[in-house]
């Protein structure tokens, strides 16, 4: 067992536990976005940031990827952590303002304004979908491509992957849009999930009025502008 102190509380947890798991077990809330039970920790969103160490040596780490250490002193809600989290949320809002999950996070953490250039991306590159595809669905149909600002998620060559079984797991876990729909570009469609479900509007030429789970659909709203 490893002994550590979280927010002043002495605890002992099993070796190999992450700070996030230990804190959750003790009831200290740490917000997460790219973390999901059953998927490997990834540390992409940095929302679960916590402060470890003391004084000048104190540093911020992502709690979902940091394994507990003997004698570790963790603060999950210090002013530095709260400030960093607010900034992360603000940046996520700038990337993907339509996401219900990110909006809820902003509300819960009292982020009331967004000071950056507004993008309308449909992806925050959290990697949940690719981990879902690989680790739970054993498919490896989608993954990261490119790098830097050109980094994107999708299938190789943007064609429907033979490995994809249209399970829809990627859409289910996606925090940015939950049900991202690309079926108005069938050749680029990652999943074709809506075709699989055969919604009534697929027969129509235009998909602008498509009835989907997202009503009103943010993607469609943006396209109208």
């Amino acid at each position: 067992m490893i002994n550590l102190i979280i927010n002043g509380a002495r605890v002992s947890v099993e070796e190999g536990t992450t700070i996030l798991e230990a804190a959750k077990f003790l009831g200290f809330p740490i917000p997460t976005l790219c973390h999901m039970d059953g998927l490997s920790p990834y540390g992409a969103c940095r929302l679960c940031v916590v402060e470890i160490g003391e004084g000048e040596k104190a540093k911020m780490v992502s709690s979902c990827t940091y394994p507990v250490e003997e004698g570790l002193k963790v603060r999950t809600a210090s002013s530095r952590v709260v400030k960093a989290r607010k900034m992360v949320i603000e940046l996520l809002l700038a990337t993907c303002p339509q996401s219900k999950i990110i909006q809820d996070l902003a509300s819960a953490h009292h982020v009331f304004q967004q000071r950056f250039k507004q993008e309308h991306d449909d992806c925050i590159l959290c990697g949940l979908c690719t981990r879902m595809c690989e680790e739970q669905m054993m498919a490896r149909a989608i993954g990261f491509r490119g790098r830097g600002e050109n980094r994107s998620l999708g299938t190789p060559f943007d064609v429907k992957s033979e490995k994809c079984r249209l399970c829809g797991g990627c859409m289910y876990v996606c925090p940015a849009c939950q049900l991202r729909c690309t079926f108005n570009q069938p050749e680029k469609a990652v999943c074709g999930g809506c075709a699989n479900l055969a919604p009534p509007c697929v027969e129509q030429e235009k998909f602008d009025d498509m009835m989907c789970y997202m009503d009103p659909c943010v993607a469609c709203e943006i396209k109208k502008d």
Partner: protein
Amino acid sequence: MSAPAVLKILEKNVKEDAGLIAILEDIQANYGYLPKEALEIVAEKTGYPLLDIFGVATFYKSFSLKPRGEHLISVCLGTACHVRSAPVVVEEFERQLGIKVGETTPDNEFSLETAACLGACALGPIVVVDGRYFSNVDTSEVKRIIKKARTGLDKVTVKADQRIFPVEVSCSKCNHSLMDSSHLIDGYPSIKVTMSFSDLHGWLALSSLYGSYNVSSEYEIPGEMIVNIFCPHCHAELLGAADCADCSAPMIPMIVRGGGVVQICSRKGCKGHMLDLNGVNL
């Protein structure tokens, strides 16, 4: 797009226990870009998921998924070049070639790229055409550079060397002369080495005329066979780092008297050879 070439590259890399990037580099060297079909073959044969191969191929800037032109122009846009108005140079290239950065001209002659830093900041703005560096480039020089690339940057020296001339060579390992004046080929002393292929081991005499491919050997070498060449004096294998540009067989390096290196392809019948006189004036 021929599958055998890709399979050959794979076979070679599996033998060398090379990783994915080495395979992709070889494919790119062969085709000039990474064809989709080649990546699919790589995925099938190596067991790497196509997803990962595609991820690697798109991550590194040196890999291209689109066919590249015969000449690659890269303009440095690093900080030092940027403040010396490299962006204007890029615009000028775009205007004169009629393409945007990352594109290739319709006649497949030029590809235009930008680079983050080419490591010669003091000489900026830097433009690299087919590996040849141009320094302190401004817009007025763009036309000249394009013209120079069209006429060929390296061909200038090759043209002067196109006549057939004898070379005297020595072993690249022990520097012992390989010339054999008792055995003449084309009327000149031959280059005597030992060779081995499929359990046969014997002497091989090459013409010392650069541009002549006449050889005689103890055993008849079957067509397209790759032979191992050894120095008859120190018995070290003559093996260089480079591969033949034509058939990707290993090249055999030999030191040229007076400076420089001559490399010949180890494949029977292949005419790939290269003379590098290391800046010695001809």
